[in-house]
């Protein structure tokens, strides 16, 4: 098999898995989303087909099994549930490993066994209820009428929480009657004036549904099981709501939407129904089979996206950078240019090349939403593991950042989120006691401002417990007992190496790394992190990041015949000093900010033997570590394109990279911290 095709398959399969993962998470939010179920089925189908062609046997088998599960789900024979979702998500990971060539055959085997078991259980179950039809028909429909008294909140009941609980029982339709005040406002004001009608399709029994309203007065709620269309004209229902024929039809349509098959299968529990349904489905499937590949490939083209390897992209950017430099060289060669037409043409060329450069750099920027699926999965698994309920809201996921930055952000963001769920958001019970919704809120928002991108993670949990931090800080010897500390100082301590407040080491956070690692990771991509918190109300973590790693603002300095660059955000202070005053003292220290500190002379460091009379001292501050560096002089400021060091030079760690200057010459970027170590 041609290796190119093989590689292409791997790329395509990875994309399919990503789409699949996204669709699964979407489905979790809205389990009734028929389109999503269809998409999942198609992704699996396509994956299976091409895996067979390229000899990925395990991938083929596993996706085949999953496909059969989702074809049942799609046809209403099986109900999508958490177990299936967990299994499929796990399978996505295993499939990704298999495609990467990892030896995950055993795990694949295990999942296949699980699926087979699932099917066996089904056959057993359906044998027991020979006449019950498919799993979907275990659903019952209810009409619920709620007339809460105005003082419901004063009685300590959380109306919203009850509605949420009801929603968890199954698909529902919620209708507000007498909405004289907008419902949201009623909830916000904690004063309910409307009354409500809810249609619910659920597997839960009548008692389970009634249990939701355990704390309401019997006069406040009515739960009726809808066995047939007659209910809406029956007395118990008419007591609350009188409907005309047209309205009844609407209600029935709603029930049908919640519980497909309800209208077609009145009273007598459909005996022949399942078969006719499945033959119809099979015919549909055959037609779809051919279409599915086509549809997916069409879909991927519709968005107008092509995926390009980063190597090709870097190449483009390099050539464009070279072009920009070459243009200025050409301009110099023309010596200013006397011919106005040539001058005009040169200006036009300049504009075009700069625009070309900007567009080329823009290609490297990708929206943050490529992280979304990972974060959602993390939140899902962490909140499950800890028994917490979390609602994740995102905003501004279309904010763009350099691809390499997004990769580097993944770990710190995951850590902050883990911490927020573990330490911040309280247990559902605790939250109820505090009059907060059971579900904790985790908000992720991001926006551009100037040449920076901000990312904020906000939770409505308990906030940072400063007493705990103080105690822990003292215990760890980071703080002294009798001193008062500001909140800011305490937050700094929290981000100090080796600090973790978890009483017990949970499997979730507190695995030895703490906020100090987050801080370091963010600093490594030239970002800052800020924390604000309010006791009992939650915390906000704000990350401030440069738009791209490739564009760097630098200070150009000279040492002997060479130029060197220092990232400008690391420069704290510069001043001139005579060589004699620096070197005459045997202690070789300078005094800065009321402290004595040693300096590194670059001429000396690079083994150059002569020195200028007048030298320049630059105080560099990187992540709170200060280094004084002595250079000849400052040449100016420059915005430049960062290039990593070639592999053969990576051992030279006093430089972090290189850059090409406007005149085509090169300069090395100083890594000041390494100067100090030597």
């Amino acid at each position, binding site marked *: 098999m041609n290796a190119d095709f093989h590689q292409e398959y791997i790329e395509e399969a990875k994309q399919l898995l990503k789409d699949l993962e996204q669709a699964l998470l979407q489905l979790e939010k809205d389990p009734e989303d028929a389109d999503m179920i269809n998409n999942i089925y198609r992704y699996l189908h396509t994956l299976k087909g091409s895996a067979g062609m390229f000899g990925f046997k395990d991938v083929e088998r596993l996706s085949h099994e999953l496909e059969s599960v989702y074809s049942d789900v799609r046809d209403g024979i099986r109900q999508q549930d958490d177990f299936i979702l967990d299994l499929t998500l796990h399978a996505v990971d295993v499939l990704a490993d298999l495609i990467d060539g990892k030896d995950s055959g055993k795990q694949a085997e295990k999942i296949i066994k699980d699926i087979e078991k699932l099917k066996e259980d089904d056959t057993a179950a359906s044998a027991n209820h020979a006449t019950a039809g498919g799993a979907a028909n275990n659903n019952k429909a209810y009409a619920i009428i709620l007339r809460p008294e105005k003082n419901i909140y004063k009685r300590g009941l959380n109306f919203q929480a009850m509605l949420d609980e009801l929603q968890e029982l199954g698909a529902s339709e919620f209708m507000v009657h007498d909405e004289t005040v907008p419902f949201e406002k009623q909830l916000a004001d904690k004063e309910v004036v409307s009354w409500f009608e809810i249609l619910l399709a659920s597997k839960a029994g009548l008692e389970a549904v009634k249990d939701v309203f355990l704390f309401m007065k019997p006069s406040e709620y009515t739960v009726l099981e809808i066995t047939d269309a007659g209910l809406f004209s029956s007395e118990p229902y008419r007591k609350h709501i009188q409907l005309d024929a047209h309205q009844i039809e609407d209600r029935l349509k709603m029930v049908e939407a919640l519980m497909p098959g309800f209208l077609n299968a009145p009273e007598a529990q459909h005996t022949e129904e399942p078969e006719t349904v499945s033959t119809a489905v099979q015919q549909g499937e055959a037609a779809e089979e051919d279409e599915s590949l086509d549809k997916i490939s069409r879909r991927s083209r519709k968005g107008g996206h092509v995926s390009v390897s980063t190597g090709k992209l870097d190449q483009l950017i390099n050539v464009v950078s*070279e072009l920009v430099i070459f243009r200025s060289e050409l301009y110099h060669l023309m010596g200013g240019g006397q011919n106005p037409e040539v001058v005009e043409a040169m200006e036009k060329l300049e504009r075009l090349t700069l625009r070309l450069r900007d567009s080329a750099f823009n290609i490297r920027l990708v929206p943050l939403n490529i992280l979304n699926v990972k974060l959602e999965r993390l939140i899902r698994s962490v909140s499950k593991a800890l028994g917490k309920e979390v609602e994740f809201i995102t905003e501004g996921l279309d904010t763009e950042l350099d691809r390499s930055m997004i990769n580097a952000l993944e770990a710190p963001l995951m850590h902050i989120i883990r911490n927020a769920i573990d330490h911040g958001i309280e247990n559902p019970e605790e939250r109820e006691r505090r009059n907060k919704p059971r579900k904790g809120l985790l908000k992720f928002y991001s926006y551009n401002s100037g040449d920076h991108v901000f990312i904020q993670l906000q939770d409505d949990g308990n906030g940072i417990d400063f007493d705990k931090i103080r105690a822990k800080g003292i215990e760890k010897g980071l703080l002294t007992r009798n001193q008062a500390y500001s909140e800011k100082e305490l937050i700094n301590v929290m981000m100090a190496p080796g600090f973790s407040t978890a009483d017990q080491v949970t499997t979730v956070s507190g695995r030895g790394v703490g906020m100090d690692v987050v801080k370091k990771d963010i600093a490594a991509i030239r970002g800052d992190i800020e924390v604000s918190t309010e006791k009992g109300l939650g915390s906000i973590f704000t990350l401030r990041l440069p738009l791209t790693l490739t564009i760097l603002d630098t200070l150009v300095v000279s040492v002997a015949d060479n130029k060197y660059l220092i990232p400008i955000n690391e420069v704290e202070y510069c001043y001139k000093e005579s060589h004699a005053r620096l070197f005459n003292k045997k202690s070789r220290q300078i005094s800065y900010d009321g402290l004595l500190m040693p300096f590194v002379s670059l001429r000396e460091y690079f083994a150059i033997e002569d020195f200028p009379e007048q030298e320049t001292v630059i105080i560099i501050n990187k992540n709170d570590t200060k280094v004084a560096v002595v250079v000849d002089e400052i040449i100016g400021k420059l915005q430049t394109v960062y290039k990593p060091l070639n*592999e*053969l*030079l990576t051992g*030279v760690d006093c430089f972090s990279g290189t850059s090409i200057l406007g005149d085509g010459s090169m300069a090395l970027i100083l890594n000041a911290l390494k100067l100090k170590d030597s």
Partner: protein
Amino acid sequence: MKQIPCLLFSLNKELFGIDVENVLRVINLEKLMKVPKAPDFIAGAISLEGNVIPVVDLAKKIALGETVIDKRTKVIILEVHHHEDVIDVGVLIDEVIDVITIQESKLLPPVLERMGFDTQTLDGMYKVEEDFYMILNATKVFEKELAVLI
């Protein structure tokens, strides 16, 4: 019979050849940037199409002496394969002589002793008329450096 196209060049009065598979191009040496603290065999770095590429004093690298840089000094840009990656490295040479195709079977084993340089870096020797060309192996030349990389 395997045929290898080779670039022939001179360096410190010795004659060398290298598989063109590894040769990206040959350029005149211009604007060499010094890299302080770099290993001794690195003469500096140049910019090539927006990339910064280290330039190796090949003579020093294979213990053949030292290259005296003048106006005629040329740089062969080599592509050295390392696992999946390709690392670009420039090497200093004196003069390009020719590109010829050599028969692998006619490669002679290198004389191992008293050659005055590191013969471990050779694939073999090749005789063209009366001249012997040492056929360099790019990966072997940078073996030590590549081993340190992951």
